[in-house]
């Protein structure tokens, strides 16, 4: 059995009331109230894309970009060489709704742009275009354990590349009716983490145990509501340790639901 190690070099967040990690960090440290989760009025425009491409991006790509830009804001890593892991439970549920509605009409006429944006790796594709990144990028899902799976995959990639930085972004949009009836996700949430093997550019060290006993770290009050309402927000117990700059161990279920992912965090002293 092996433990996976990675250093956290940067964190980014985009969620209702939390436009960036600084505001999420203040909330997680208890310095300010936790925002009431609701939909976002305006999704930020994704940086780095040509105007035509920018116009075509949907909310899911915008939240993935916002969190990723935030995580990289104070780092100097070369974006063109940066590997990336995009983890999302459901991908673009707005497009699923649009396409499935359009398929009920005769004659069937789908939007070509919507179709190419419907792939699970659309946000990753736009990220590569915006940053001229030819490095490896993967897009995955493990349903409610998508953050756990993404964190393991990103750490495995750090391990594989002898410590090169890897961008992890985990994100899901809110769902609208009628899909919200079958899969309610009441608000969008995106979290990004820059992981690497470099102890010099580190907020703290992360140690993962993918064979921990099954368990699920819970939070208090409004944070617990946030944590359970969007699969990407399953990152919050770990983010709380990073925000408070305290050592600790939290756990979230593995994709199998038979084991836990133990996440030990040791802030840089």
């Amino acid at each position, binding site marked *: 059995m092996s433990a996976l190690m990675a250093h956290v070099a940067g964190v980014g967040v985009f969620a209702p009331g939390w436009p960036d990690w600084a505001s999420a960090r203040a909330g997680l440290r208890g310095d300010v109230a936790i925002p009431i989760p609701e939909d976002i009025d305006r999704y930020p425009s994704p940086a780095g894309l040509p105007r035509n491409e920018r116009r075509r991006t949907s909310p899911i790509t915008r939240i993935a970009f916002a969190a990723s830009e935030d995580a990289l804001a104070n780092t100097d890593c070369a974006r*063109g060489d940066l590997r990336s892991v995009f983890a999302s*439970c459901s991908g673009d549920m707005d497009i699923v709704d649009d396409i*499935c509605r359009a398929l009920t009409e005769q004659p069937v006429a789908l939007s070509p742009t919507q179709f190419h944006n419907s792939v699970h790796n659309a946000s990753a594709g736009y990220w590569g275009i915006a940053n*001229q990144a030819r490095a490896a*990028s*993967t897009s995955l899902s493990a*349903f409610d354990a998508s953050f756990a799976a993404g964190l*393991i995959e990103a750490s495995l990639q750090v391990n594989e590349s002898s410590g090169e930085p890897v961008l992890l972004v985990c994100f899901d949009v809110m769902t609208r009716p009628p899909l919200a009836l079958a899969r309610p996700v009441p608000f969008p949430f995106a979290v990004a983490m820059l992981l690497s093997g470099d102890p010099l550019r580190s907020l703290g060290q992360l140690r993962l145990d993918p064979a921990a006993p099954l368990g699920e770290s819970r939070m208090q009050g409004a944070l617990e509501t946030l944590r359970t309402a969007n699969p990407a927000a399953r990152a919050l117990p770990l983010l709380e340790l990073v925000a408070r700059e305290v050592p600790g161990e939290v756990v979230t279920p593995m994709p199998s639901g038979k084991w836990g992912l133990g996440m030990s965090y040791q802030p840089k002293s």
Partner: protein
Amino acid sequence: MPVLSITAATVTSSLGAGLSAHEAALLAGRSGLQPAASTPGYTHAPGWLGAVESLDAIQLPAGSAAFDCRNNRLAWHGLNQDGFADRVGDAVRRYGAGRVGVFLGTSTSGIAQTEQAYQAAAASDFDALPGWYDYRHTHNVHSVSAFVASALGVDGFSQTISTACSSSAKVFAAAARAIRAGVCDAAVVGGVDTLCETTLFGFHALQLVSPRACRPADAMRDGISIGEAAGFALLERPEIAAPWQLLGYGESSDAHHMSTPDPDGAGARLAMQQALQQAELDAGSVDYVNLHGTGTPANDRAEARAVEALLGREVPCSSTKGWTGHCLGAAGILEAVVGLLAIRAGYVPQSLNTESIDPDIGITIPLTGQARPVRHVLSNSFGFGGSNCSLLLGGGA
């Protein structure tokens, strides 16, 4: 040192169920494609299709009712070929259920269930979805891995990769990382994608569907034919004796456009180069390239440029999409298994349906199958969003 041993493999597509059906079709030059107009259930769709017969009759194992949909039926049908499920059972007994991982690729998973639910909901202006509809166990990207893990009794790390048409090639890389780091001792990798209206009409909207059976590398090629497939491989540590080996893999991004490849194929070349480097092989060691070769003008031209720049013009290269159609999220595993069959049979399959090779394509495209020793196969899979993956496969040591 190989990256991993491939101790078992199987594939099911429009060519039939299992390895022998595929080998026989490849040797005979028999395509699985037929006009959509004569494909039961899909007569309203454009182009030609590579459909798997009789999926309606497949019953999932006991306790799996929530997972029931075309995609998971094809997964179950595929798992039951070539004794594959039994081989995984052996691995579970050897390593323990928690030490065997599941890494599958899919592009659209069971989205056909959502399409049908919306058809049922249209009459009520989408006020409600029908009671039978189960998003998590059918449509969600991870449904196929959750079902396969449950059906095989496997509890190790699992994830579903969805990078469009490179999905089920990239699973080999993900599994290699997990095994190398000790997260798993063995991994079930593969991919499953099934016909659905989203892709049939989506590719049509992009004007990428050929009105006839696709003709990769042909001067007159005019688009893809869509197919469906399920394929699986069992991967174990490289010291385990096996009929085949994964020698290298490469992953890259185009950083060019969402649905059009970089015309110079720079990202594709990078993926192939990484695979060769990891395998510690030079360009002359590749005996056959299974091209992504979708049959669109842009893909085949860009890919040929990338192959020529890296491997030169001599190595025989063919796309097998004229046999199976483009199986999207299952294309990577389907074509990796075709590569394994090429090694096993000592046979380079031709570019089926291709009549007159595009003069802009300078690489060697065989128009008839060739019996010759095949030691090393490079298999390319490229997807929307500019996602590229190349696998280097070899025979057992």
